[in-house]
Structures are given as C-alpha cells and as structure tokens.
C-alpha cells in the first residue's frame, strides 16, 4: 500500500490515477474552503452595511447591530485562514522570480521543494499553536466584549481553515517532490 502510494507520487508506476484523485480532492477542498471564507466576507459586508444603516437611522428607532466590530474580527479571522489553502495551492504567494533563469528547471524544482517543505512545517506549527491557543482561551473562559461569545469559538473556526492549510501544504510538498523527479510534467 505504502509503496504504491510512493510510486504514484513519483509517478513511476502505472498508479497515476491515485495522485490525480488526491489532486482533485485537495483542489475541491481548498476551493470549497476559499468560497466559504468568501461567503463569510460577503456576509460581513452586508452586516456592516446594515449596522451603519441602523446607526444612521437611530432617530426612527433603528440601532446598529450589537457587537458588529467583534463579528467583523471573528469573521475575518475565519475568512483569512480559509483563504490560505487556496493561495498555497495556486502558488499565489509573492516571491522574487528574477534569478529563476539562472537555476534551470532542476534547480527551480528543487528550490520549490525546499520552500514547500518549509511552508508545510510552518503550516503545521501555526495549526498546532492555534489549537493550543484555542485551549488556552477555553480554559480562561474568555468571552468577547459585547456579545459575550466564548473567544475560543473564533479560534475553532480558524482552526478548520488552518487544518486544511496544513493538508494542502502537504499536498503541495508531494507535488514538488514529484516535480523534482519529473521536471517537465
């Protein structure tokens, strides 16, 4: 089982379809996560606009949405964590490409591998510490200021994004390992 898996990553055998299956699952997952984050962002836009309208029309008995700032902060944290996997998968991170021509195909594939390995380790570190941070907040019974929502809720939603980020970063690592062995695919 394990050797078949490794072989499929290196794409040396005839089990190519496994890597393709993984690829489409990871792609779908990252996309789904990014869209979820996007919907939350749109909800925050609607909520904030409604809240401003409520504040503007306080003379006729309307009011701003309570805790609107907190909701923006919580929602935004979820959205950003949910966006990370998509950016990683699409190689969306800013980098300096000016020396790329010097390194050749092999060299670039190797550099990508190193970056993707380190990114995966950083993703794991972030996810792990975020989890611990969540447990901290839970044990302190910290709540938000206005809505009195437990702070760990925000961490928990962010953790979902961070887990997918780690998963996608691992996939990207596999992708670049494969690339090192077959630089032209």
């Amino acid at each position, binding site marked *: 089982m394990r050797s078949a898996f490794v072989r499929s990553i290196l794409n040396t055998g005839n089990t190519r379809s496994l890597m393709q299956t993984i690829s489409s699952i990871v792609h779908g997952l990252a*996309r789904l996560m*990014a*869209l979820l*984050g*996007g*919907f939350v*962002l*749109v909800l*925050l*836009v*609607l909520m*904030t*606009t409604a*809240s*401003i309208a409520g504040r*503007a029309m306080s003379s006729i008995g309307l009011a701003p949405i309570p805790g609107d*700032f907190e909701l*923006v*902060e*919580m929602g*935004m*944290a979820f*959205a*950003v*964590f*949910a*966006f*990370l996997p*998509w*950016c*990683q998968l*699409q190689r*969306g*991170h*800013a*980098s*300096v*490409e*000016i*020396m*790329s021509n010097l*390194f050749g195909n092999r060299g*670039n594939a190797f*550099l*990508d591998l*190193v*970056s993707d390995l*380190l*990114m995966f380790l*950083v993703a794991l*570190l*972030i996810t792990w*510490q*975020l989890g*611990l*941070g969540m447990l*901290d907040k839970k044990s302190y019974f910290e709540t938000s200021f206005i809505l009195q929502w437990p702070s760990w809720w*925000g*961490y928990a939603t*962010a953790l979902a994004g961070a887990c997918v980020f780690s998963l996608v970063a691992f996939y990207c690592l596999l992708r670049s390992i494969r690339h090192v062995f077959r630089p032209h695919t």
Partner: protein
Amino acid sequence: MSNLAIGLWSFPILISLIFLRMPIGLAMLLVGLGGSVAINGTTLMIVAQLKHLTYGTFSSYSLSIVPLFLLMGQFATLGKLSAALFKAAEAFLGHRRGGVAMAAVGACAGFGSICGSSLATAATMGQVALPELKKYGYSNALATGTLAAGGTLGILIPPSVILVIYAILTEQNIAKLFAAAMIPGLLAALGYMLTIHVYARLFPASAGTTERVPWAQRIIIMGSTWPVFIIFMLVVGGIYLGVFTPTEAAAVGAFGTGLVAFFNRGLHWQSFTNALLATASSTAMIFFIVLGAAIFNAFLASTQLPQTLAEYVSSQGYDPWLILGLVLLLYLLLGCVMDSLSMILLTVPIFFPIMVTLDFGMSAEHFALWFGILVLIVVEVGLITPPVGLNLFVINKMAKDVPIVETFRGVTPFVFADIVRVILLVLFPGITLWLVKLLY
C-alpha cells in the same frame, strides 16, 4: 554574537532566501523565528507567541479593511463601470491629439477612485480600452504603455490598499493619508496625459483621434458614470467626515460596487465565485506577508537594530535630503524585482524610524504623510519597470500580438513622468500636504 550582530546578519540571510524564490512572507517568518531563537537561546518563547499571534493578526479590525477593499475592486470590475468611464473620458478628450489614450488614463483615474488595486485597474481598463486604441490606430507601444501606467492610478488615487498597510505600520491616520494622496494622484493622471500629448506630437502616426462630441452629449454620457461618484463620495467622504471607520467604509464600498455589478448584470454564479476566489488568493498572500513581517519585525525590534540604526544615522549629521534621495532610489531599484506590498512591509519598519528622526522642517505627522506618499509612488513605479513590472505583463497578456519588448518601450516615457513627479513632490512637500492642512 551580540543581539545587534544577529539583527544585522538576518538581512543577508533574508535577502538570499528571497532571491532563492522563497515566498517573501515565508522567508520573513522563518528568519524572524530563527533570529528569535538565536537571541533567546530557546524555541519556547517564540513558539508560545504563535498561540495568539496568528489569530490576532488575522482578526485585526484595522487590517480587515484589506480584504474588503479587494472585494470592492473585484465587484467594481464586474460592474462594467470601466466601459462607462472610458466612454465619458473619450467624449471629453477623444478629439485631441492622443486623446483616446488620454481618455484611457482619465478612465483609469476614475476607476482608481473606487478600486484600491493597480492590477485590477490595469486588467479591467485594458479589456475596455485596448480594442478602442487599436481601432483608432494607436501604436502597440503607446497603447500598452498607457494602460500599464494608467493601471498604477488604481493605487495612487485613494482608496489604496498599500496606503492602508503603510498607515497601520506607521500608526498614521488613514483618512489623512488618503487626503494627502489625492493631489499627487491627480497630478499623476495629468502627468500621464501630458506624456501622451508630447509622445503624440513627436510620433503623430502613433495616435489617432475620434470625432468631437458636442457638449450637451458629453454631459449625458458623463451621467452614466454616476455610481462611481456616489461610491467614491460615500467611501472617502464617509471616512473623512468620521461617519464611519475606514473598515466600515470599505464594507460600504464593497456593498455599493456589488449592487452596481448586480444591476448591470455582471454578477452571476460563475463571476461571483471567481471574484471571491481572486479576493481569497490576494488576501491570503497579503496576510501571510503581514504575519511574516510581524514575526520578523518583532525579532528586529528585540535586537534594537532599528533604534540603533536611527540613532547612528541621526548622530552622523548626514544631509536629510541626501538620505531621502538614497532611500527613494533604493525603492526604485527594489521595485524592479519585488512586489510593492512586500517592499513596504519589509522596509518601512526599518526606514521609517530612521527617516522620522531627520529634520525636513515639518512636524513628524506631516513628514509621515509626505514620506508615505513618496514611498507609495516609488514602489508603484516598480509595477511598470521591467523585468518584473506586473502591470506590463497583465496588459501584454491581453494585447496578444504585441511583443513584451514593445510594451517595455511604450512604458518608458511614463516611467520618466513618474520620476519627474517624485522629484517635484520631494522638492515641494506643500503639493502633498496642502489638502491635508486644508481639511484638518
């Protein structure tokens, strides 16, 4: 090794990693982590910091303006306002020599007033204006050069994502920065138009004209751009008057452009999800760099390097203007290889404390505003300088038959215009600060 030495050594390491194609945010994060471990002698402290640092950064209320402005720009692109703006500008300017290209610049300026991103402005205006420029016989070099340069107005004219980041890094008032950016932004648009005028005079064959449009008609065509005015006034006016926070203003702007996109039938499932995905990718890129920069800058601060450097420079009695000139030159050079946001996040925390101690004959706050606008402009020049000017590639990809070298050639006069403008703004800080002083 002393802490200061560790701080100094971190730079060659960071720069090497960046030139080895490591994502910039990742490189800053790793060097920051490594440096902190080197200073503290243990991994415990910095790792424990990560428990709340990542969530804290990503849930920052003031940073949440960034994804909202990005979403606003995406919706603005879908709202088909670019076509209306271009038609209006063309009605006013098209009959002049080089007028269609000037109209493209004018439309970019208009679009820039509701969009905080250069790439989005270049991309959306390119789609509308490139075919028109071709139709009226504009040379490939002039057409692509105009649009690549015009795209930078997206950032130069507020709202502007880069200015938001600068404001957060230097703890300045976003509203005042937007006010300071206004006149230099308009000056940029005028400078580009002047460049086109001169270009068209020197090479008359490279620029055609449209029929003159009567004034009554111009006003009517102009009328179709009303959503741009409303949204701009709402967003920038709202921030200025303190009716809402910058984050709320960005949300209102995204709501407004979203409505326009919806009513102009630009918003269907496919385009909506694409807009969200594009926002997702840019947001994650920016926030990851912000996170890396936060860790790197925390490490730098603990080495006391920025402080020591600032004391050293101010005690040497160098000419402040010389240092300013060198810093701006460094930005111009860096801009040739690096994207503007990474540059700001990497350099402002180091340069700003140094620069603010130098005496330019103005208050610290005015200096911060003026320096911010200067930096904004020089890093934006990086978007249109080869070899990695992103706007050049965005436009060149659209104009499929134009070799990239021709685009490089076409943009050269605009780069020249940018440099002239920077010199003007350096010599006359009043141009930048006049509106700020008037309003506040």
